[in-house]
């Protein structure tokens, strides 16, 4: 593997993404929404809607038993705990997934649509080097944004919750496992899904629409958490991460078979 060639392709792709307003808007808005706006708003929700405190208590009482048993009676502190360690936590996984998904769509289908793939195919980069470069160009920023976003999330949560919690309560172990183990796995899932879709469609619009379907596991996790079917603890996070890594590996293995010059050139 020629790392210089791979690096050149990665840098070119990232530069191209950085200069596209259409791509950068969701890449900025989604992390800001999920990692800054949501934690802030959800922390203050019971206080902001003071008159609705009883309604929140009722909502809390309706949570699945395992969640209630873990957190005890409804107080503002338990609300903050539940929101950040259970309800909002899986949403954070949308960030690496979507970032990888969007960049991969631009790198595979978008490049073909703009007709800039052909000159790449004429370079000395081997099929494997092209493949690795395209993967890294999407995976690295997705994971970096997830890591940085998680750090920002943790700082913001502790700051906004300080008046109630009076201590640094976040992140917990589950969250750390999610960030370091599950987030890269979900980035790989978004990437693998988009690779598979991109090899079968011609345009970026089709690719993003179909590739978005791979977000369903994240949605399933959120719904599972809210309904109590999944209670995310450290070991559960490790297990789910492992499963997602396995699915991503299968998708990428299928994708690499189609990622050959002789196949790609037929779609130009």
């Amino acid at each position, binding site marked *: 593997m020629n790392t*210089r060639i791979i690096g050149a392709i990665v840098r070119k792709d990232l*530069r191209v993404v950085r200069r596209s307003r259409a791509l950068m808007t969701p890449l900025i808005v989604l992390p800001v929404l999920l990692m800054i706006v949501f934690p802030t708003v959800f922390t203050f929700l019971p206080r902001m809607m003071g008159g609705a405190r009883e309604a929140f208590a009722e909502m809390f009482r309706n949570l699945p038993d395992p969640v209630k048993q873990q957190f005890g009676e409804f107080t503002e502190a338990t609300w903050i705990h539940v929101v950040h360690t259970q309800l909002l936590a899986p949403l954070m996984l949308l960030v690496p997934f979507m970032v990888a998904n969007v960049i991969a769509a631009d790198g595979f289908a978008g490049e073909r649509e703009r007709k800039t793939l052909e000159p790449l195919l*004429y370079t000395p980069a081997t099929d494997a080097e092209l493949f690795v470069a395209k993967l890294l160009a999407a995976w690295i920023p997705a994971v970096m944004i997830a890591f940085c976003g998680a750090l920002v999330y943790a700082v913001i949560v502790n700051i906004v919750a300080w008046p109630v919690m009076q201590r640094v309560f976040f992140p917990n172990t589950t969250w750390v496992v999610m960030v370091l183990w599950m987030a890269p796995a979900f980035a790989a899932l978004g990437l693998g899904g988009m690779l598979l879709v991109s090899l079968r469609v011609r345009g970026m619009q089709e690719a993003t629409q179909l590739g978005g379907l791979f977000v369903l596991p994240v949605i399933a996790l959120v719904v599972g958490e809210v309904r109590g079917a999944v209670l995310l603890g450290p070991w559960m996070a490790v297990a789910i991460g492992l499963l997602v890594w396995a699915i991503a590996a299968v998708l990428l293995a299928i994708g690499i078979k189609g990622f050959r010059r002789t196949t790609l050139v037929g779609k130009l």
Partner: protein
Amino acid sequence: MPAIQLEHVLHRYGATVALRDLSLTVAEGEVFSLLGHNGAGKTTTVRIINGLLAPASGSVRVFGLSPLVDGAAVRRRTAVLTESPTLDDRLTARETLRAFAEMYDVAAQDVASRTDALLAEFGIAERADDRVGGFSRGMKQRLSLARALVHDPDLLFLDEPTAGLDPVATQQLHQSVRQMARGRGRTVVLCTHNLVEAQALSDRVAVLGDGALLALGTPGELARRMAPRLEVSLELDPAQLATATSVIGTLDGLTVSPERAGMLRVAGIARERIPELAARLVGAGVSLYRLEPHEPSLTDAYFALQHQGNGTGSGQ
């Protein structure tokens, strides 16, 4: 060792045969043109030579290497200027050249100087840091050519290189091609519809039709082979035009028409009958001031080939 050697290459897209038993050799340092209508097989040939497509059968060698086995090594020595400028609008000209210099593994210490030299050579230096999206068609074409040359390739494919260029830029490009081939021994393969350009630049041309090689040779050879009859301009005493016309009318197969004052144009004459034409005119007392044969052009040969292809219905 030839730069390119194709032997009995066959390629299909599904049921459609794109190349049929194509065999040709291009020598190092040669300027070689691939001519043919859209879909004749020019782009497929270029892609096979660069390892982007695998032929169904036949042998392909580029500088002795197989593009399918040693694709990276082959592409390190080749460059392709595609028909439309396939540049990323969001990159600047400088970024484009630097990125491709690195992809072609140009030595790190040479990347900046090589980029700057090409930007200057192709007249893009002043807009080197502007995004390509704002460039005119001609500037994009020049940048595409600069990109193709960034690693100083031994074998350069130019697909319709002057499409969209103004006459000055076209002339510069022609000079660059000549300089690359004659001055630096590089091999250039032109894929073009521009027959005048092919005739002006090429050492040899191959005419493809429906994936088959219809003709191969120097432009002159092809012209003579495919268009053996010439046109001749005659300048004579204006008072003798009628006499000359009637003399020429007695010669089989020739047609004559007035060209301008004191001149006639004779069509359909074989090269070996020109002395007979001159002798008959002089013998009839016509004062012949000048006789100028017009060599058949590659254009004449090309259309003769296409006509022949249509006539047989197969293009072969």
